[in-house]
């Protein structure tokens, strides 16, 4: 019995990973296929990558995506940190309620969120474009950022702050020299989560983007409406690989530092 179960577990794991990552590998494989339409392998090429990188529409979409994702990371992480402080460090009426409300956007269907934001923007007369996309992304990223940072905050020993105060640091100095450095892993984790959260969003962005402005996911969508081409495969591969490499480098750097 004890011999058998590891074998079964191994098989199960392999099957699970194939199920999860198999499609991705096929996509990557076809991005190097010479054949444009067929599913048969006709040889290796980098042609589709060259095409996609030279495509002005894709370039603009990438620019738009980054223009949204980067400010979104900065602003929602900042607001998330402040919100986490407010909720975790203070006792006030409705504290529990506020924390509960924070979860709602995470559970709300994107469709509903998209429609609501669209209604809001049109009713206050904001013209749809990059700005409305950014506002929308910040709106759905703040809860995520806050919850990640609250999680980290709960693990900080309050006595460390008391120790700092005892050693002569006033409240602000304590926050600057002790609390924030200890919170940093949480803040970084929140940034690392918010970035793809914003970069990958399709549904909400679709509602609030208006005409003319288009992020990368929207561009990909419009490209596959005319059929799955190898250029889309190449783009998909890049979207998966580039952030993955960045994260791996980050982990390696973090390991070396300690």
């Amino acid at each position, binding site marked *: 019995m004890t011999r058998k179960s590891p074998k079964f577990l191994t098989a199960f794991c392999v099957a699970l990973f194939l199920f999860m990552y198999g499609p991705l590998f096929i996509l990557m494989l076809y991005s190097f296929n010479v054949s444009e339409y067929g599913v048969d392998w006709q040889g290796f090429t980098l042609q589709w990558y060259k095409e996609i990188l030279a495509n002005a529409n894709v370039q603009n979409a990438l620019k738009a995506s980054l223009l949204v994702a980067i400010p979104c990371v900065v602003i929602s992480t900042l607001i998330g940190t402040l919100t986490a402080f407010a909720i975790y460090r203070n006792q006030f009426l409705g504290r529990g309620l506020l924390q509960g409300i924070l979860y709602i956007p995470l559970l709300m269907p994107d469709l509903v969120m998209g429609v609501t934001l669209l209604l809001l923007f049109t009713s206050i007369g904001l013209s749809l474009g990059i700005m409305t996309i950014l506002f929308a992304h910040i709106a759905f990223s703040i809860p995520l950022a806050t919850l990640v940072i609250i999680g980290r905050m709960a693990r900080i020993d309050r*006595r460390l702050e008391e120790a700092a105060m*005892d050693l*002569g640091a006033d409240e602000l*100095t304590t926050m600057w020299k002790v609390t924030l450095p200890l919170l940093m892993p949480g803040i970084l984790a929140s940034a690392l989560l918010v970035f793809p959260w914003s970069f990958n969003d399709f549904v909400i962005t679709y509602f609030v983007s208006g005409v003319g402005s288009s992020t990368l996911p929207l561009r990909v969508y419009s490209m596959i409406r005319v059929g799955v081409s190898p250029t889309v495969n190449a783009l998909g591969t890049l979207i998966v690989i580039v952030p993955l490499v960045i994260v791996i480098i980050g982990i390696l750097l973090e390991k070396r530092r300690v």
Partner: protein
Amino acid sequence: MSETKPSVELKKVVKRFAGVPAVRELDLVIPQGEFFSLLGPSGCGKSTTLRLIGGLERPDSGEILIDGEVVNDVPPYRRSSNIVFQNYALFPHLTIADNVAFGLRLRSRRTPAAEVEPRVEEVLELVHLEGFGKRYPDELSGGQQQRVALARALVLNPRVLLLDEPLGALDRKLRKDMQIELRRLQAELGITFLYVTHDQEEAMSMSDRVAVMRDGRFEQVAPPEEIFQKPKTRFTADFMGASNILSGKVRAADPDQSDGHSKDRLSIDLDSGITITSEKKDGVGPGDRVEFSVRPDDIYLRPPGDDLDTDNRFEGSITEKVYLGDVTEFDIDLGGGISLVCRSESREAQRLDLRKNQAVLVGWDAEDCNLLDG
């Protein structure tokens, strides 16, 4: 001038948490340079008292004075006291040297940058951690971390050092070493130490004076010998390990004129019918109900038929015998529902061949009967 003022003074200090009193009207005076311990079980208010003095809690009423100045409204970062925390509270993101230098480098302290490093080295040397400056707290053992916490507080030259169960997490051997070390540091630096512990041995071995605390009040404040030998209350007696607490009624003062110092004696009828002789105590007379304690190691045991020249002498039987190393502990049944715990040196117990379920002669002196306050 300030030398004549007490180092720490509490005047009717009260602290409640959500309405529940943690500290009730504490009055306390600690002179300069004293090693003072707060001793009590968990939840007795000893740590709260320390936090009140350190400024981490604010009293609901009463006054706290450090060096003669009321500090009720002074935040912790402006007090001349420093705390050594129970679990050290070292900053995990800073090296040992940066931990120790934390207080020195703050702008409020205005230490010239050139002075910081030599000061840090000096203090690390004082706690025998020279060369550890570049490491991080999680690379040090518990004992070493403890000494870093000590160094971090001492480097600021506090007037009062507040130690909150600083040795609680260390193993027995290390704890003994650190006790001696702390005593040495305190003597060397002449700083007032306020030491919080639940370990009576620790409090005994280090302190000039000990306050036994219970439910936010002091049961007794006295030098260790006095607390140990003459506990005032049942609680203190029990907490200090004088676990034999008996009660009875005073029959007469001066029970036996034939004895030379009998004028100082009381005769007490125990509830079980036997009568014992105890030392006299002011305000206790015939007819009063009293409780008294006898320390287990003040009770002598002899095989039946042996001589036992003590003021009180009874026949009993050994119901339990536990070997504890240096000493052996016996449970003795005196009959009438009275049982006593006695402790003899193990070698003595072996020589006398005292065994379980054996009859035994039990005795103790009148002066070892410690009458407790009602």
